[in-house]
């Protein structure tokens, strides 16, 4: 029996047991996951009895060994974003191609970026190897009859933008996109339906210098504004013009086909492009609904208090992002980008 043969098996979760990092695997062949988020895709898989009873659980070492034995593709694109800014529309557009693998906010990557090092069980070099090995295990076909895999993109969780240096170590060749949106709309959207990461405690003591108790007692609008401000701030700080395309929500969806595909240096096949064009007319997270711009509605809902929190905690960072975007604008959009590619 060969313990490092994981052909057809995919790592869905890291966890810590008996003092080491473990990997939980399900058997999943090449079927594409079309759900807007990685976790939802796995959640649907969990309805099958086989995935409940016959998962494989191995030490991290086996995943690293599998990477060496059966290397898959590295991501050609890493998507960073400030939440509620159109990032799901980008990932759903790319996922229209069966030649592309889109991994959207996978919890295992968040584990490696945010929890693995503080656990003290693995060092930075192992985290980097694990990141590479995790994507690699997904970014390979196990059936030769499946469409050839040409490119891979990974969308990180918004709060992981400050972990960009680890991402750079893991995939030095990958292109990045930083997607931002004017902050009042983002804050209004989050106050209407708050993402879990904006509930105090879920990210630990995430604001520097403040204890968890202080965070829990902070008024929730202020907490959200400050956490979002940190994400925008990380984006401005981690911007690297050599690899990063700065996009704004106002440029979507048009810039997906032009700037973004060119930036990731991938020539999406024409049939897939046609499907992508149709997909981007619909809502990112709710594909049965047409997309309707709502920035004005969101602004009209903003209280004076939210406006002043935005101005104090987020807007200065967003202004820096906008300034960078102006300074490093690609010479022009490339409507004829297909001809510009090799």
């Amino acid at each position, binding site marked *: 029996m060969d313990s490092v043969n994981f052909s*057809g098996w995919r790592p869905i979760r890291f966890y810590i047991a008996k003092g080491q990092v473990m990997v939980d695997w399900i058997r999943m062949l090449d079927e594409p996951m079309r759900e807007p988020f990685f976790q939802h895709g796995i959640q649907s898989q969990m309805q099958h*009895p*086989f995935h*409940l009873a016959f998962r494989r659980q191995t030490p991290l070492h086996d995943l690293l060994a599998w990477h060496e034995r059966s290397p898959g593709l590295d991501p050609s694109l890493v998507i960073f974003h400030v939440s509620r800014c159109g990032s799901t529309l980008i990932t759903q557009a790319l996922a229209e191609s069966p030649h592309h693998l889109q991994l959207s906010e996978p919890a295992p990557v968040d584990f490696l970026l945010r929890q693995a090092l503080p656990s003290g069980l693995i060092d930075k070099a192992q985290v980097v190897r694990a990141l590479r090995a995790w994507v690699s295990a997904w970014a390979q076909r196990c059936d030769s009859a499946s469409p050839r895999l040409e490119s891979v993109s990974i969308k990180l969780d918004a709060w992981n933008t400050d972990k960009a240096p680890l991402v750079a170590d893991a995939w030095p060749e990958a292109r990045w996109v930083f997607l931002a949106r004017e902050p009042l709309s983002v804050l209004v959207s989050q106050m209407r339906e708050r993402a879990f990461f904006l509930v105090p405690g879920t990210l630990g003591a995430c604001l520097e210098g403040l204890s968890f108790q202080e965070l829990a007692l902070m008024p929730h609008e202020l907490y959200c504004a400050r956490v979002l401000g940190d994400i925008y701030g990380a984006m401005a700080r981690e911007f690297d013009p050599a690899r990063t395309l700065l996009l704004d929500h106002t440029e979507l969806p048009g810039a997906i086909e032009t700037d973004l595909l060119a930036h990731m240096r991938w020539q999406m096949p024409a049939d897939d492009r046609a499907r992508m064009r149709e997909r981007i007319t619909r809502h990112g997270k709710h594909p049965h609904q047409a997309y309707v711009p709502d920035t004005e509605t969101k602004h009209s809902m903003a209280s004076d208090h939210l406006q002043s929190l935005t101005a104090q905690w987020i807007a200065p960072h967003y202004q820096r992002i906008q300034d960078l975007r102006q300074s490093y604008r690609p010479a022009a959009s490339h409507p004829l980008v297909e001809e510009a590619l090799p």
Partner: protein
Amino acid sequence: MTPLESPAQAQPQGVMVQGMQTARLPWRFDAAAALAEVNALPSSLWRTHFNEGRHDGGWQALALRSAPEAPIDVVPVDVPASGYADTPALEQCPTLRAMLDTMALPWKSVRLMQLLPGCEIKEHTDAGVCAARGEARLHVPLQTGEQVFFHVDGERIPLRAGECWYVDVSRPHRVRNRGSQTRVHLVADTSVDMRLFEAFRSSDAGEPLPDPSDPWSQFIRFRDFVGADAEHSARLSAITNTAEFVQESVRMGQDAGFQFDASDVESAMKAGRRAWVEQWIL
């Protein structure tokens, strides 16, 4: 009844001890003498265990201490130790009485539990009964054997006659008696006081029982076998009906030389679901 003694005031009073899963405590008893007393009790005192959905009819209990508030004498209820009294059965069992006195803990519900040969207590949890909440359920096996399989969270607990064990029954646990004689345990509930806390400190993990015949460990080996075998993986993963899936797993296991039960597959499914769901619990 003074206000301090009212049930509302008498919620878990014990020391909360984190991280205790199972422990063999430093007390040893004469199981043979205790068993002779148990066998002398009229068989009419035994009741089929009230948790009827979780066993196949072979799980029985006999009350040694009970609370007047309890709907049935073997049911533990949430009142302090002072709310419990010895039953006439305990008065006929001086060795059992002496065991409880030796441990000198604030006893609540105390009962005898037996599992008939060939019978099974299915996987279940007893919410809140754990040292982490200051409560403890102790087991003293009086008659048992190597063919009795007591699993907590997928780990086999090596309970031997005359030993005293703490088991965290708030975690999923189940018991199978594949031996030829009835398994009999003294099961006693207490809150965790400093004496029990000290006993935890000098506890150990017990002596392992032989592994090869353990059906759960047979299942684990079959799972490894399926993981590394594309053909078995493909055949089993194609089945979407749960009952059919369980049945086919057992059959394919037998064909490949692994002896386990449908309940092992069911427990594996529950554990697999739990592992996936619990990652979201902070």
